Every structure is written in C-alpha cells, then in structure tokens.
C-alpha cells in the first residue's frame, strides 16, 4: 500500500500502522513505551507512599539516634586537616561495641599511669632524715 506524501496525516485508526517503522498505538493514544513509563512511575509512587505510611506507623527504633555533634569547636591536631578532631576531644558517647574481654579505660586513669616527675636531689644534700609530721 503506498501513501500519498501530500495527503494530510490524520489520526491513525486503532489497529492500523502509522508511518513505517513506528510501533503500534493503543486505544489510549500512548505507545507501549510510554505506557510502561507511566506504569513504572505509578508503581514507584505507590511504593513511596506505602513506605512512608509503614514507617510512620511503626514503633520507635530500639537504639536512639546519635546525639548531635557538640557546638564547641573540635581541637584538631597540628598534623591533621582542620576539619578533623581528636576522638578524646569530642564530647559525645562513643557508638561502638566493646569486644568481649575488653573494657573502656577513661582518659584520667590512663593519664594517671604516667610516672610522677622525678627530680635528682643535689649531690650536696646530706643523706639524713628530718622528722616532721605530714
């Protein structure tokens, strides 16, 4: 069947082919590709709404969300970028699991393990005792 290129193009009747190479059209006037796109879009919207409904109605999570970072500026080490901070300078509860057999040592006790400052007594100081109550 030949076509007259001068003939104005009229809406295709259902079931008829359009210009050669095009896909058949359905009754809604959409191509199958366009229909697939719309179906996927609708399904995605339904999923999104359903998920929000489900999560809004569910129980609170077992673990509370981490507290926000403190507003005090972090204290970076000199050899690290300014955006980082020492872990012992961050005032928030650590979010890790302590392995079995380990325990968290507070910083004061670690610091206290450092030896006391020893001083050498002058050689001229006599080795004798002075009684005193202290």
């Amino acid at each position, binding site marked *: 069947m030949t076509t007259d290129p001068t003939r104005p193009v009229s809406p295709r009747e259902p079931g008829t082919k359009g210009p050669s190479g095009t896909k058949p059209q359905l009754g809604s006037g959409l191509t199958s590709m366009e229909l697939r796109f719309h179906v996927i879009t609708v399904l995605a919207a339904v999923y999104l709404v359903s998920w929000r409904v489900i999560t809004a109605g569910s129980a609170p999570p077992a673990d509370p969300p981490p507290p926000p970072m403190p507003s005090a500026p972090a204290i970076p080490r000199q050899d690290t970028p300014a955006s980082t901070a020492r872990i012992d300078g961050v005032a928030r509860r650590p979010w890790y699991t302590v392995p079995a057999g380990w325990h968290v040592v507070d910083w004061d006790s670690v610091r206290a393990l450092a030896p006391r400052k020893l001083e050498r007594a002058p050689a001229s100081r006599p080795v004798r005792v002075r009684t*005193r109550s202290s």
Partner: protein
Amino acid sequence: MWTFQAMNTEVTVSAPALGDPAERTLAVDVAALFEQAERRFSRFREDSELTQLNRATDAITVSPEMLEVLVQARSHVDHTDGVFDPAIGAALIAAGYDRSFAPGALDRAAATTAAPRARFSDLAIDVQHRQVRRPPHLQIDLGGLVKGRTVDRAASLAPSLAMIDAGGDVALRGAGPDDAGWLVDVEDPADARRVLMTLRVRGRCVATSAPNRRSWRTGSGSAHHLIDPRTGRPADSDLAQVTMIAPTTEEAEVLAKVAFVLGAAAATHVLAQRADVGAVLVLRDGLLRVVGDVEVADA
C-alpha cells in the same frame, strides 16, 4: 637520691650502694607504688575507691587491697582500744580539713562544729565476700595508715641499704651510708629551723606526729589534723610532738598518733611495754623525754 611529690608531700628515695641508673629505677618503682595507693585510698580524689566507700549508701564490694587495709585498720583499733581510729573522716571535715592541705587553704572565719561520734568498729566487714557496709555518719580516713604501709612496701623493693622518706614517715634499711646508723634530726616543733637532737637509727622506721605543719585558723581558734577519736576534736594533750621508732613505718605511724593523743604520762606507760620501740616526746612546756630503745647521736 631522688625525690617526687605524692600524698601531698615530698618523697625521697636513696640507695647509696646502687649506681645512678639502678637508683632511678628504684625511685620509679616507688613512685608507681605511691601512685597506686593514692588512686585507691585518697579521700580527696573523686574517683578513688575510698571516696566510693565513703559515699556508699548500701553494702559494696571492695577490692582485695582495700579489704586488707580495712582489716589491718581494725586490728590497730582493737590493739589501741580505739585511741587509733580511722573513722575520723567526718571529724576532720568538721574541724575544717575538708580538702587537701596547703598553708592557709583551710583557714576560715566560721567556728568548727563537732561531728557525730563514729567508731571504726561500726563498719561491717564481710571478709569472705569482700563486702563492706558503712553507717551513714561514718567517714573513713586512711591517710596516715596508708602512707606508712606504702613506705613499708617501697622499702621491700629496696636493697639492704636504703632510705624511703615520705614526708617524715621513714623506712631506714641497713646501718646508714657510713655504717654508723642513719642520722635522724628531731625538728623543733616551735621552730622548724632548729634541731632538738639527732638520733641514730639502724634497720628501723620513724614517724612523727605533731600539729605544727597541718594546722589552720577557725572562728573557734586553731585546729589541726590529729583528731582524738574519743572526742571527735583535735587532740589537746600536753605533747607538742612525738617521734616514734618502730620495726615498721605503719607501726611507727599508728603509735605516734596514739602517743600524741594520750599525752606524755600515758604514752610513756604504753611504750614501756614494748621492747622494740622508742620515742622522743616533746612536751608543750619545752621538756624533752626519751623513752625506750633510742640511740642519740653525739652532740
């Protein structure tokens, strides 16, 4: 000879027969002992085990080290009929000793108050389960006792010729650098620049009780740290100072306190019953009394 600061005093370690590196190593080990003791037994540290015990409202489980000290303290209380009693924490606080001592730091215009009478024997100690229950009004102060014990432990690390001096609580091992006895200068409690007499001590320990270095002003007058457990107030005997010589620093510390609280006559009577101790009593009227096994150096 090496020094370091611990228990709010200067600690001196001397082992004349050791070379420098070995003597320093000894000093490091001694410093570690004092650090451990202070972390556990200081009533001025918020995180010490003693502070936890003094704040406990129910029975608590204590460490083996704490249990050992509490049991030993109870033994001293029993042997001294309560004249030595570590349950003076509340009395010390009431007298004004509520923080670590520094000259002038405890002075206050307010008058002191009396604390409720507390007895160490009221402390319930379950040795088997290491559980201790403290009555609410009972506060424990282990300062002197622990310092003496720590000096003794430090001395056990030292060679046969050594001196461990923690602010006047001293362990003297051997016969001194010249084998003629360690020289011990008895300070004048009225003038720290003066020496009243010099002793020679061989293989024994020394401790001194006197109010002169830890006293402060209050609205009631002056106060000091040597509490009479029988009254709950600073002791008011006829003694200005007691220097005690005993086989261990712990014993010397306990006996010095007991003698100071009892006064010259009663102290002389108690000390006369012990062949292995000696003392120099300085009375408030200026008299000196030497009791028991004491060697005085030639003038």
